């Protein structure tokens, strides 16, 4: 599987990397970080050009994120959100999520681009559905994706020979960080609930 994808990168180059980062923004299972690292490794060897790899990955990722946001905002996401908020079962949780996004939305968008990247696609949809100001979303998105691309392409450039091992390790570190963050947030909410009911 991994080898087939790496074969695609060496065969088609930039196009595959852009496509992978674009599709990963819609929660499709794309090993986009491995492909960015492969791009960096090929750039180090002289098969690809470094700035083109960065730009290609960056363009794909930003386009994908903006697509998710705009879809949620203008193609029904807003109405779905309003409907969910009227339902008593989900109203409170969603109002809380919306308030959190209004207060810390910029950071949520920035950090879910690279550090908690598995959550990125969903944050795009929530940001669009709750009408987070587009300029703020765009700025946080640009900064976050730039960080993501810079980190992985640099790692690929430096660790060229060991990208597969690095990707296996790092993928699980990101998974642990994301699951850990969700655990902490839920733990905090549960704790607050318990104190409130006492």
């Amino acid at each position, binding site marked *: 599987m991994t080898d087939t994808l790496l074969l695609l990168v*060496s065969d088609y*180059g930039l196009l595959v990397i852009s496509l992978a980062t674009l599709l990963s923004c819609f929660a499709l299972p794309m090993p986009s970080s491995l492909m960015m690292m492969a791009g960096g490794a090929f750039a180090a060897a002289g*098969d690809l050009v470094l700035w083109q790899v960065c730009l290609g990955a960056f363009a794909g990722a930003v386009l994908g994120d903006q697509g998710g946001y705009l879809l949620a905002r203008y193609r029904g996401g807003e109405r779905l959100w309003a409907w969910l908020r009227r339902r008593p079962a989900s109203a409170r949780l969603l109002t809380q999520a919306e308030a959190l996004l209004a207060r810390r939305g910029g950071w949520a968008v920035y950090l879910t681009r690279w550090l908690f990247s598995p959550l990125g696609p969903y944050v795009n949809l929530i940001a669009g559905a709750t009408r987070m100001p587009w300029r703020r979303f765009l700025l946080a998105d640009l900064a976050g994706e730039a960080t993501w691309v810079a980190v992985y392409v640099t790692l690929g450039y430096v660790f060229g*020979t060991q990208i597969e091992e690095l990707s296996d390790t790092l993928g699980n570190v990101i998974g*642990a960080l994301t699951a850990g963050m969700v*655990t902490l947030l839920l733990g905090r*909410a549960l704790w607050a609930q318990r104190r409130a009911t006492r």
Partner: protein
Amino acid sequence: MRRKAMLAVFVIAAGLTVFFITRAIFFAVFWMDPERGLHPVEPWMTPRYIGRTYDLPRADLQEILHLTPGETPRVPLEKLAQQRGIPVEDLIAEIEALIAARASK
């Protein structure tokens, strides 16, 4: 009821955290193992990538791959083998022999 659901998700998330930490440690240990030696040559690798990774002289590699001295195309080994109508394993074996010969020098 909602609290129960939240608790369930909390337990699942905590379990996933432990699962990913274990996997991360496993892969890191595997990666750092000095006994493991060099990463094997694989069909997706390109001539330049192989040259840089295993520190091989360009001329030797070009000879194995039947490339002229000026040629270092961004073409994976698999395709180079296909073009010559030979199995990619043959090319990999020749390259690994070259790596071994250089390492023993």
